[in-house]
């Protein structure tokens, strides 16, 4: 118990939590945007891969770090557009389309990577985002190391939380997005296009998801590996429900998951001899389910989630 306490008060633990949470923040915000508009995007896992691969490849080809971020977002948006096309005007099953996009995006990324680099035995590396050492702030006790030694992409993630919150809560666009996910007819009757709103929401959300992937290859690491997304996208799908589709809670959920994960590593190292290591690996997932069970009753779903809408039909 003393150990646990010691871990929880260290700065490096919280810095690690935020670092681990960063890609999840992008992912859960992306999922949030799509689902607020009424469309489940199970393509997220594949879109993470695309973001990781394209962002990294762009930097490797000389596009520069921010160029890579942009390329990742565009690539994610492109796959989002495909999902949007299948699920919005065509109204196909969102589950299947999403899983199809995941398979498609993953295999396109892998195939492209291998075709471009047929004979590497160790993946080429790029110069990734470095922790930003903000002169005075970084030296603040506690907060300094936790917040001010993160990379620019972590800051972008936090900025995105604020931005998504602002758009959802304070702008006409946000209101329309929420409305289209609750009752598309309400939007249609006010002369707005249900299709356009949903399509753009999915594109934007997918671009956001791709940034989560890009974080992995451009900030958390400096090269692309097969399989490195490792289920992070799926975790976001769980977190968005935990977050009741609210950006602030999404941040909280991602941080909690990050903290569980950071804790898990530390506990496994310390107590690995007493308990099988897997117990700790499971912990973040089990705790997510527990959190969901606690939060479930209060979660109010976007009512139109999973339901396609066609103009002029009832």
């Amino acid at each position, binding site marked *: 118990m003393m150990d646990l306490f010691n871990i929880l008060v260290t700065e490096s633990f919280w810095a690690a939590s935020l670092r681990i949470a960063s890609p999840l923040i992008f992912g859960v915000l992306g999922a949030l945007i799509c689902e607020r508009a009424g469309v489940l995007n199970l393509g997220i896992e594949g879109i993470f891969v695309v973001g990781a691969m394209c962002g990294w490849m762009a930097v490797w080809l000389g596009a520069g770090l921010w160029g890579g971020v942009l390329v990742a977002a565009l690539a994610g948006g492109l796959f989002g557009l495909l999902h949007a096309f299948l699920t919005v005007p065509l109204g196909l099953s969102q589950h299947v389309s999403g899983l199809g996009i995941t398979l498609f995006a993953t295999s396109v990324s892998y195939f492209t990577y291998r075709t471009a680099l047929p*004979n590497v035995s160790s993946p080429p590396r790029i110069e990734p985002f470095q922790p930003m050492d903000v002169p005075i702030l970084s030296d603040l006790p506690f907060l300094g190391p936790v917040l001010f030694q993160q990379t620019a992409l972590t800051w972008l993630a936090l900025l995105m939380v604020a931005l998504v919150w602002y758009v959802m809560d304070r702008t006409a666009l946000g209101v329309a997005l929420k409305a289209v996910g609750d009752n598309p007819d309400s939007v249609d009757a006010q002369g707005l296009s249900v299709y356009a709103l949903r399509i753009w929401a999915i594109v934007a959300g997918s671009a956001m998801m791709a940034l989560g992937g890009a974080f992995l290859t451009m900030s958390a690491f400096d090269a692309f590996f*097969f399989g490195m997304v490792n289920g992070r996208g799926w975790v976001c799908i769980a977190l968005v429900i935990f977050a009741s589709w609210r950006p602030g809670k999404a941040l909280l959920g991602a941080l909690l998951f990050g903290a569980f994960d950071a804790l898990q590593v530390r506990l496994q*190292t310390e107590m690995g*001899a007493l308990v099988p290591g897997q117990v700790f690996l499971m912990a973040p997932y089990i705790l997510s389910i527990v959190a969901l069970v606690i939060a479930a009753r209060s979660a109010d779903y976007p009512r139109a989630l999973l339901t396609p809408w066609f103009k002029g039909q009832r």
Partner: protein
Amino acid sequence: AEKLKVAAIYTLPVEQQWISRIHKALNTAAERGDIEYSFSESVANTDYERVMREYAEQGMQLIVGEVFALERAARKVAKDYPETAFLMGSSFGPVAPNFSVFDNWIHEPSYLTGMVAGAATESNLIGMVGGYAIPEVNRLMHAFMDGARAVNPEVKFLVNFIDSWYDPPKAKESAFAMMDAGADVMYAERFGVSDAAVERGIKAIGNVIDTSGDYPGTIMASAIWHMEATVDKAVSQVAAGTFEAADYGQYSFMAYGGGSLVMDESLVDAETVAAVKAKETEILDGLFRVNVNDQRPVSDN
């Protein structure tokens, strides 16, 4: 002479450290003009048997791969294609007439890198991040730990497995956690660990591949696996028509050039360098045998 047709079947992408060594040896042979090389990577175990049969049907003369998860099935296939030579990473023995086995027996250089690490640690705490706790990994970790304890009886270890072959960000986080707990030398079994070491400015020990070029000033020593000895031996035997079922494991030993130690002598103190070299000679001369222990290693506390 006619080029030998060789196929390899990997269950993971060729970037995976272990596989990359086989891939490299085969590519070298292909470049030399000895063989015509094709491969399938990321083959699911479910599909592995089919791929073996397909290659055998295509008339491949030598098939290389790893059959740890399908030892029996693979031997069945070999029996069905007696004309084809099989050289497979395996925990079990060879089967006559055509099924040979190998494994990455680089516990010897691992022991030596352990000596380097044991001498280098000031906190007497060494961190080790692994993928899965499989014998191939456990064995090297134990050899490393034995080496470190041999030079530093005080040393303790933190051990962590991330249950993934490919999650460098996760491996990196594990490494950070160990450094937070006081580890000042890292055993880098996975990609990601050395990166964490670089960021915190501490030293690391490499495994299987030589990454010192990627992390100059960080990697003190690495235990390197060379598949060339194994592959070349098998290729020449198939070409000569003398291929037999045999355990090629020994070709990964240092004595055959299958395992070696690389050391960045600028990072290691002279006394240790000397001790390590002496031990290396002992091993090469057959005077010292490194213990083999396949159990899952755990942290000391």
